[in-house]
């Protein structure tokens, strides 16, 4: 069977195609892969089914997140070359195969098959799916890249909101005991996500070579905002610039601070306020999820108006101030605690959603998806650093005889320092030096074909 319908050339839209028909394709993919944040629903049933520890089951999630970072970094250039449809479809096959192989592992009692399926293969689907719509959306919305990527990456936050209640419903619908319902629930989700992501893949379109939105004129060297480039930088050149590593530090610091709270949200609020029980804490977790999703769209869209560097100064600077308030006065009232953490988590989501537009400003649109993929290694590193800081500090404080909010005070002050480091890194970001720029005629040819040409730097070499 010919798979040529997946080729980039077959996805080129007509000139009068409405660009607002493209975001749902991106959302379909991100809402599907966002399920990974609802994996905790399956944790206890899997522990019971395999009669093993929480750590052994938690490794499934960890493998998938590590594979997300690795595959986004390694396969970013491939995603740029083959175009969004083939990439999205590949992500759909990997992600749904992860569920199907995982179901086989549960049915046969082989935990390694769940590691291989949901963790390894599913994780590859996560990485490809996460970056696949980014550069396409930026090309459709050159005038509002923050809004475009915010809309898509909001889906990753929203995916867990859908998957969590859906998975709970499936587990209770298929069997009396949740552990007996894992296999049919995995199969159902695998098929559901294959259909949804495939719909996204088949409806996605790329703009024609010289298409522009009505009334839009590309910024020139003279009128471009100070941080916006009119040139393009390849992924291989980008990682040799200080700007890439400063932005890597910015993302790492912002995610480390946010993920530390997200991971501990339920026990944290119960430790801060002794009259809060598990059910009320679940309400707090739900509120943070909504703040995470809303922040992705609202703050990223706002960055189109005020600029990428200023908004990261807000995420990191105001974020540091809020962490300080939380550490010094967090126990003074539940309203203060909830509002402060809600804004912090909205900044966490906003940081994720704004970063592709920041990359586009600095490195141009030529290989922004591939550069974004490499930058996501900061996410994988922060996913280890954030929870480690909070958990280790809490353990050491508990060993020292402290309890309640005192378990977290030191780690919150550490997060203030982490955010200050990120703030300084953001301040140091300057436009990329011209020697890293691609020659314009080669860049436009490569952007049109999706195939790398002999680059300026390669010719020099």
């Amino acid at each position: 069977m010919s798979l040529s319908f997946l080729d980039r050339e077959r996805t080129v839209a007509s000139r009068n195609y409405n660009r607002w028909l493209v975001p749902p394709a991106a959302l379909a993919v991100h809402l599907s892969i966002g399920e990974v944040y609802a994996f905790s629903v399956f944790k206890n049933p899997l522990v019971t089914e395999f009669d093993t520890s929480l750590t052994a089951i938690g490794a499934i999630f960890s493998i998938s997140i590590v594979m997300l970072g690795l595959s986004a970094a390694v396969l970013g250039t491939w995603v740029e070359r083959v175009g969004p449809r083939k990439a999205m479809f590949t992500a759909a096959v990997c992600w749904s195969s992860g569920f199907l192989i995982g179901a086989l592992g549960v049915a046969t009692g082989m935990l390694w098959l769940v590691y291989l399926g949901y963790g390894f293969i599913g994780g590859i689907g996560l990485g490809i799916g996460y970056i696949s719509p980014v550069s396409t959306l930026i090309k459709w919305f050159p005038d509002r890249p923050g809004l475009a990527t915010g809309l898509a990456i909001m889906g990753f936050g929203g995916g867990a909101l859908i998957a969590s209640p859906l998975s709970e419903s499936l587990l209770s619908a298929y069997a009396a005991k949740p552990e007996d319902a894992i296999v049919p629930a995995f199969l159902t989700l695998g098929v559901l996500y294959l259909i949804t992501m495939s719909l996204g893949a088949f409806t996605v379109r790329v703009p024609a070579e010289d298409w522009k939105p009505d009334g839009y004129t590309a910024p020139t060297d003279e009128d471009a905002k100070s941080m916006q480039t009119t040139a393009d930088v390849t992924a291989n050149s980008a990682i040799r610039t200080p700007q890439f590593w400063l932005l890597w530090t910015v993302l790492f610091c912002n995610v480390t601070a946010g993920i530390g709270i997200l991971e501990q949200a339920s026990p944290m609020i119960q430790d801060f306020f002794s009259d809060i029980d598990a059910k009320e804490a679940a309400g707090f977790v739900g509120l943070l999820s909504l703040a995470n999703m809303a922040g992705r769209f609202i703050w990223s869209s706002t960055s189109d108006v005020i600029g990428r560097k200023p908004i990261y100064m807000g995420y990191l600077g105001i974020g540091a101030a809020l962490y300080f308030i939380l550490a010094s006065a967090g126990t003074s009232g539940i309203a203060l605690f909830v509002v402060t953490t809600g804004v912090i988590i909205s900044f966490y989501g906003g940081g994720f959603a704004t970063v592709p537009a920041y990359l586009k400003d600095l490195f141009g649109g030529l290989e922004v998806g591939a550069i974004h993929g490499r930058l996501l290694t900061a996410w994988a590193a922060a996913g280890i650093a954030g929870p480690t800081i909070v958990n280790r500090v809490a353990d050491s404080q508990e060993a020292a005889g402290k309890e309640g909010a005192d378990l977290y005070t030191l780690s919150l002050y550490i997060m203030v320092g982490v955010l200050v480091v990120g703030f300084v890194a953001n301040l140091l970001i300057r436009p990329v030096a011209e020697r890293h720029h691609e020659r314009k005629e080669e860049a436009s040819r490569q952007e049109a074909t999706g195939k790398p040409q002999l680059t300026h730097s390669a010719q020099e070499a």
Partner: protein
Amino acid sequence: MSTNGRQEDTGRSAVVPAILLWVLVACGLLYGVIQTATKIPALFGG
């Protein structure tokens, strides 16, 4: 150019599925937001 004809066809055939996909993702998001929002009142004693 031959690709122009293909582009026009591609555009027309994509509109209806894309609109349906908008409806699907909007319904999905609404479901997720409502399901999550129902848990929040518990935080304030509801």
